[in-house]
């Protein structure tokens, strides 16, 4: 019986730790600040972007481009003020972006997915010094270039020579917002040469092939410049984009899912209630059908639930609606292990074994079935997880993970917790109350 006492102490410590992990506190140690909720439970936007890798810089590998794009999206999401954005590369050319709890979804999408290639362009002039116009009478612009600081290479002046310190400032005289930017050393050399060449002529600032500002060059400018003519909101967005650098390749949205925050919390409440009712019914059924062993199973089930929730919180597992469903189903499977054991126990008692032998035999014989059937569930979980991650179905992945953890912990619960409790009850002389014992008389 000594072994059981040790197990009991171990279980009690575990339960204590689990409760400590689950209960909400102000402390953020070990991620104890709350469950990590998926977008479907707290609201937000799930985006899948596809990158056009045919437009990448050929000197870089696909992986490098994707990693750079990911880093830049992360920076943009953070500067836009999204809390806990989740950005993952999925497959070879897709990026999954999750933006929890944002209200202006469209604005966020604009900031995150824009290539934001800034270019300084100058007008095209014919040999007589007149601007060349296209068929519709618009000025023809081309990217301005100049000799670099080495005095040999012609370089185009683009956003890559910007320092990441652009900011929104107010024009002293007009009081209108503008974006102040600063070139790095190389950019300053180029800008100086270009402005010198274009004195009293217009130059334009293009962002992603769109002309956002055209101005006549008044004097030679070096390191600093401003972009005017934008609304405050656009200025702020432009600053985020300029400072995070341009995305290296164009991105298109191939999948977009928005969930309203109220809808999310509503789903959470509903499924938690469903879960509580479900577990309640299971406990009632077990006690009704198996009496005292049912009470043991119910206790084991509650401990099981506490352990699973603690693990979810500590890993942490992002809980989604299907994830909660996965947990609830794993409760069913946890009960199954107990049912298997109790049915075996009954049988062993019927064959006339003593209670001690029957418990040992019952557990021993139930084990291969528990093991083999749960491993088949693990196989399914592994495949679901793979299926979920290859095409970014975050809900499927969440379900697979919670089901896997649930089933794994349920094996522990059935074999260690239930067994320890039963052994202790037998040892503690409560045998007479153990109603499965009565089956012997019935048969």
């Amino acid at each position: 019986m000594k072994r059981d006492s040790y197990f009991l102490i171990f279980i009690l410590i575990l339960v204590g730790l689990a409760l400590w992990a689950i209960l909400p506190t102000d402390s953020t140690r070990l991620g104890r600040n709350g469950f990590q909720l998926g977008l479907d439970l707290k609201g937000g936007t799930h985006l899948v972007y596809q990158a056009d890798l045919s437009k990448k810089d050929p000197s870089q590998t696909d992986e490098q481009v994707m990693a750079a794009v990911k880093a830049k999206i992360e920076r943009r999401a953070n500067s836009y003020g999204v809390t806990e954005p989740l950005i993952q590369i999925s497959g070879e050319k897709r990026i999954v972006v999750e933006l929890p709890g944002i209200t202006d979804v469209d604005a966020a999408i604009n900031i995150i997915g824009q290539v934001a290639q800034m270019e300084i362009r100058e007008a095209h002039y014919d040999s007589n010094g007149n601007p060349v116009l296209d068929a519709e009478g618009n000025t023809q612009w081309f990217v301005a270039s100049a000799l670099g600081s080495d005095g040999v290479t012609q370089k185009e002046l683009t956003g890559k020579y910007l320092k990441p310190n652009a900011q929104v400032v107010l024009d002293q005289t007009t009081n209108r917002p503008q974006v102040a930017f600063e070139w790095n050393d190389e950019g300053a050399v180029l800008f100086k040469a270009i402005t010198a060449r274009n004195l009293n002529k217009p130059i334009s600032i293009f962002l992603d092939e769109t002309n956002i500002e055209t101005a006549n060059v008044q004097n030679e400018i070096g390191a600093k410049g401003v972009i005017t003519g934008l609304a405050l909101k656009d200025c702020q967005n432009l600053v985020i984009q300029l400072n995070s650098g341009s995305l290296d390749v164009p991105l298109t949205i191939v999948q977009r899912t928005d969930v309203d925050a109220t809808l999310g919390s509503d789903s959470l409440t509903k499924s938690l209630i469903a879960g509580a009712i479900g577990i309640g019914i299971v406990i009632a059924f077990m006690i009704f059908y198996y009496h005292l062993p049912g009470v043991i199973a119910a206790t084991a089930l509650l401990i099981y639930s506490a352990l699973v929730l603690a693990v979810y919180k500590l890993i942490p597992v992002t809980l989604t609606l299907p994830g909660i469903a996965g947990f609830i189903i794993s409760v069913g499977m946890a009960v199954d292990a107990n049912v298997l054991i109790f049915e075996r126990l009954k049988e062993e008692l019927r064959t006339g074994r003593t209670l001690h032998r029957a418990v040992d035999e019952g557990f021993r014989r139930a084990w291969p079935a528990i093991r083999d059937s749960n491993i088949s569930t693990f196989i399914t979980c592994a495949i679901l997880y793979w299926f979920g991650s290859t095409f970014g179905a975050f809900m499927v992945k969440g379900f697979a993970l919670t089901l896997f953890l649930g089933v794994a912990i349920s094996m522990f619960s059935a074999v260690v917790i239930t067994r320890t409790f039963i052994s202790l009850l037998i040892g503690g002389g409560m045998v007479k109350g153990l109603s499965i014992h009565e089956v012997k008389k019935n048969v």
Partner: protein
Amino acid sequence: MFDIVGKRYWFFLLSALIIIPGIISLAVFGLKPSIDFKSGTSMTLHFSTSVNESQLRSTLADIGYKEAIVQRTGEGDFIVRLSEISTEQNQQLLSGLNTTLDTTTEQKDLSVISPAVASQTARNAVIAVFVAALGILAYITFAFRKMPKPLRWGTCAVAALVHDVLVVTGIFSILGWAAGIEIDAMFITGMLTVVGFSVHDTIVVFDRIRENLSRGGRGNLENVVNSSILQTVTRSLNTSLTVLFVLLALFVLGGATIHNFTLVLIIGIITGTYSSIFSASQLLIVWENREWGRFVSWIPFLRKKKA
């Protein structure tokens, strides 16, 4: 002792009565794919003023979405499905609704999927179910490696699994044209869970047969299988019932997002329990006795309507 094994062809007949209409429906109507598998837009809209279905439909047609499918939810919101739209088109649509219907539209959720993603999802889904079946076949064959002809156990378990997959997809095909229920990524998830559960249940029965056989068995295989089924039937029913209780609670209270998902699981667990008792281990006997000849002659036997 109650004889389940002896009545095996009646159980096969019952399975056929459910599966054959399902297969016919699958062949004629197929499954009704959601936007997960065919691309498009799905959104839930809530209006500040009262708007009825036909008003919304005609307004959508006016602003250029004639093909929009409008459905009212239990909570008084509307689910609108249309072709794939861009972020700008979505904004125009919402402002168009606000002006024409003189209301404030709240977009509770929005899901846009492009054809590139949709076709991949469908392909991956099929691969996932296939790989799961193979993995399970391999594992059961391994788990029963000490038994004679271990591959048989795996194959019979997978046959029962295919049975369950056919029952569920067949019923969903029928529900597709009869009740407009669509197949989405969560359906596949539910299906794979059913696959796992089906095998879970089958293995428990197989495990008992294995144990009884290795104890020397009582009489021939048919007797051993029959008593093994009877020994495990309480456990099968108890487990399935508890899982069903939980699922019913989820189905009734769990919210619209996982409604179809829980429905798949409910149907799947019922058929999974049925097949583990009445199909999987019976197939072992059919195989052992090489009853193929009898199975073929069973068709005219059916016509004579004799037991």
